[in-house]
């Protein structure tokens, strides 16, 4: 804790936003890469992963709020979206001709990726904004 948290609280918020969206994008990339993985290290087909975001409010030593950010709290398996069973007897992992495929949809992942990227860009703009405001304020001292 350097004492500059109040001064840079806004920047801190945007940093957290950038970080969280970055994690989200990494997870999406992982899903896309494993869209056809029928057997992972644990022997099971790959299951889609999702990131759980939650707000994160930080305070200084006086109890005053310094930043109102967000964090990628955890990466969880998507247990809601059903896995797909397809008929593909040629597949080495087929059981009675059927293979269980990952519950990853390419279109869905792309849509999520766009959402994450937009959020990332927006946070960058906000950061630039804070920079400009600070510069303008400091100019008053001249």
């Amino acid at each position, binding site marked *: 804790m350097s004492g500059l948290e109040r001064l840079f609280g806004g920047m801190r918020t945007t940093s957290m936003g950038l970080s969280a969206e970055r994690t989200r994008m990494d997870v999406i990339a992982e899903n896309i890469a494993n869209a056809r993985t029928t057997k992972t290290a644990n022997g099971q087909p790959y299951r889609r992963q999702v990131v759980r975001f939650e707000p994160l409010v930080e305070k200084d030593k006086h109890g005053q*709020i310094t930043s109102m950010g*967000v964090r990628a709290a955890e990466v969880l398996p998507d247990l809601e979206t059903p896995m797909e069973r397809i008929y593909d007897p040629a597949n080495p992992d087929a059981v009675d001709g059927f293979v269980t495929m990952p519950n990853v949809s390419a279109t869905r992942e792309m849509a999520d990726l766009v959402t994450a990227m937009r959020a990332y860009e927006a946070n960058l703009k906000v950061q630039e904004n804070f920079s400009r405001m600070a510069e303008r304020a400091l100019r008053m001292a001249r």
Partner: protein
Amino acid sequence: MDISGSKIELLARLMNASSLRGRVIAGNIANQNTPGFKRQEVQFEDSLREALASGNPRAMARVTPELTVDELSPASPDGNNVNMELEMNSMRENRLTYETYATIMETNLALIDTAIRGGRS
């Protein structure tokens, strides 16, 4: 011998509120994808205007920036009600306002500066 005037003090308070608003907007934008998140805003200028209209000088001094949670704006299925177009617009407006206050502040400070120089510069 307080060199500053009440105008400068008022401008400083306005800048404080504007700075807080900037942070709150940043918080909304950072949480645009957080499920269940409700956007927040800062109340100050309206309260100040009311206090001004009341004619009581002490009422004005008592007004402080307030953080409020917006539960009313429509939300998406996951409960998040951050509207990105609105927030980005607010962000731009807020920055312009802040910078305008800074310009007015500089003008007021320049007046004091000229007075100190005895009318010469």
